[in-house]
């Protein structure tokens, strides 16, 4: 058997090896579980891993393949699942004490679709509690570390999903992105993170944070794997009335065999406001400039565009997202499921269960959302924010008339250290480059671009395309990835 380099092994490469009989699913899964055993005490990406269940699924996949009845080309490949996306008969805590005892009686649509292709759901991945945070420090259970430097955060909220792929503990994972929660940790950990167009992927079985913004997406070693996952999980689902009826397949085919392709005739827009933003560090600027040089060298044309309402995006987001969260999280009351704190009457039980069950950041956002929706304030905050959301959407529509795709930073800085950002507002402001497209509904992808010379940490860039134009987004991101100076991003760990 050939040596497996799990730190960079892609799904498409593993699938080809399985098809060629060079490896079995049992050997592949065993190798990943050994790697988890070896490094996860340091990385702490996983809240739970059920080895027996995974190995049983791997054996079943090998049997199917031996009989010529594999469920797909990818039968027998593990996929990590963020703890807010439910898998049948597994816990789903959202990294919250309140949901710690809950075991899901059903599969989310995305997990169901993975299983139908033979992918093996592997473990429960750590996150900021209820997906609220940008560093994974808001988990009620553990701090996930960045595999590139264990003193740094992996980003959030899908910190576990990014860290486990970067550390080679699984080849791909699922995250969820409400304001950058896939793309920001992807950039911090040197992996690819895709936020599909709102509605591309069913939210059935995703614990809701902000329903009009939440979207599930993949985290992977390369763009081709992200396309494979989108083909697998995307498309209309009767169980989510906001899922879009348009076909969602063929993305992997569209990005295969792009080696040697150039970007002649492609106009890449650089939104000037993103490069004037406060707090943008030299290492991120350098990473984007390097990407610009790569794109120019293969024929792309750079144009400056303007997204004039950029500076209002954080304010709009923290009104809309908290308002929706305050409504969505009202269902967690310790009555039908979850951890109940017994009290004398029903109302006192609500107060005590929610007071003890939610962490500080979740309380802060529920209260903020409750405040902006409370009597007398609705028009001033929520309605006004929805109107500015329209202005932000129009900015993107106008920019799209001048270019094919946008290129921006993902984060103002590379991964920071634990405890470095203790002020909530400062943490919110670090989402400036990722949240606007959740508001507008565009699709975006974070792709590793550089490694910071001083800190040794990876730097990502973000490509943004109009809604439903994932094919263009993935093609351009793939061609960039194939031509960038650094070919593979892997931590020493």
């Amino acid at each position, binding site marked *: 058997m050939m040596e497996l380099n799990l730190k960079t092994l892609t799904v498409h490469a593993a699938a080809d090896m399985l098809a060629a009989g060079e490896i079995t699913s049992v050997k592949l899964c065993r190798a990943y579980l050994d790697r988890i055993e070896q490094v996860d005490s340091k990385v702490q990406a996983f809240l739970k891993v059920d080895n027996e269940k995974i190995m049983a699924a791997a054996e079943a996949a090998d049997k199917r393949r031996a009989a010529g009845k594999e469920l797909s080309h990818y039968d027998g490949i593990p996929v990590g699942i963020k703890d807010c996306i439910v898998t049948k008969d597994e816990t789903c805590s959202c990294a919250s004490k309140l949901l710690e*005892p809950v075991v899901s009686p059903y599969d989310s649509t995305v997990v169901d679709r993975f299983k139908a292709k033979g992918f093996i759901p592997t473990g429960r991945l750590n996150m900021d509690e209820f997906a609220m945070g940008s560093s994974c420090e808001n988990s009620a259970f553990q701090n996930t570390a960045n595999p590139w430097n264990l003193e740094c955060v992996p980003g959030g909220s899908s910190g576990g999903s990014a860290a486990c792929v970067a550390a080679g503990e699984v080849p791909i994972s699922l995250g969820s992105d409400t304001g950058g929660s896939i793309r920001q940790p992807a950039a911090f950990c040197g992996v690819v993170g895709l936020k599909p167009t709102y509605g591309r992927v069913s939210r059935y079985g995703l614990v809701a944070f902000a329903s009009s913004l939440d979207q599930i997406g993949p985290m992977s070693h390369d763009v081709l794997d992200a396309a494979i996952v989108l083909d697998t999980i995307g498309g209309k689902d009767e169980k989510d009335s906001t899922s879009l009826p348009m076909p969602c397949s063929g993305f992997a085919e569209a990005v295969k065999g792009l080696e040697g392709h150039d970007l002649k005739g492609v106009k890449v827009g650089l939104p000037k406001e993103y490069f004037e933003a406060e707090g943008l560090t030299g290492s991120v600027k350098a990473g984007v400039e390097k990407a610009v040089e790569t794109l120019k060298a293969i024929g792309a044309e750079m144009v400056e565009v303007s997204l004039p309402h950029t500076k*209002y995006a954080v304010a709009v987001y923290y009104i809309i997202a908290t308002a929706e969260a305050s409504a969505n999280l009202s269902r967690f009351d310790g009555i039908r499921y*979850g951890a109940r704190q*017994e009290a004398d009457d029903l109302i006192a039980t609500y107060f005590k269960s929610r007071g003890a069950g939610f962490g500080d950041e979740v309380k802060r956002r529920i209260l903020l959302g409750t405040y902006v929706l*409370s009597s007398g304030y609705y028009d001033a905050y929520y309605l006004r924010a929805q109107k500015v959301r329209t202005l932000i959407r129009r900015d993107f529509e106008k920019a799209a008339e001048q270019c094919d795709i946008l290129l921006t930073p993902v984060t103002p800085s590379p991964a920071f250290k634990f405890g470095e950002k203790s002020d909530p507002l400062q943490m*919110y402001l670090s989402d400036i480059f990722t949240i606007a497209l959740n508001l507008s509904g565009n699709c975006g992808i974070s792709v590793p671009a550089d490694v910071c010379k001083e800190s040794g940490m990876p730097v990502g860039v973000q490509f943004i395309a109009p809604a439903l134009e994932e094919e263009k987004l993935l093609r351009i991101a793939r061609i960039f990835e194939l031509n960038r100076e650094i070919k593979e991003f892997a931590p020493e760990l």
Partner: protein
Amino acid sequence: MGDQGRIDVGYVAGLARIEIDPESKERLQHDMEEIVAYIEQLEELDVEGIEPTAHAVPLTNVWREDAAQESFPRDVMLANAPATVDEKEIKVPQVLPGEGMS
């Protein structure tokens, strides 16, 4: 309000039904004042005549056929309940205020 600042955190926590200890209340007060001051920069924009966006993708409500479907068995649903009555119903604390019921 008044001396405490603009936001009555105790009142808002009451609306959200979350118990908050005095120490967290002070911290939340400070954080929320700061965040609300930040989001109020939206006031400088003229939004007269602008349609609000509630959803990134405009969708209209759709109806499915009113057809009977399998649902979860009772024991599966009750497996996550913190307390049950004979494993048939969810047990809840007293709902109406007043004397305890037997």
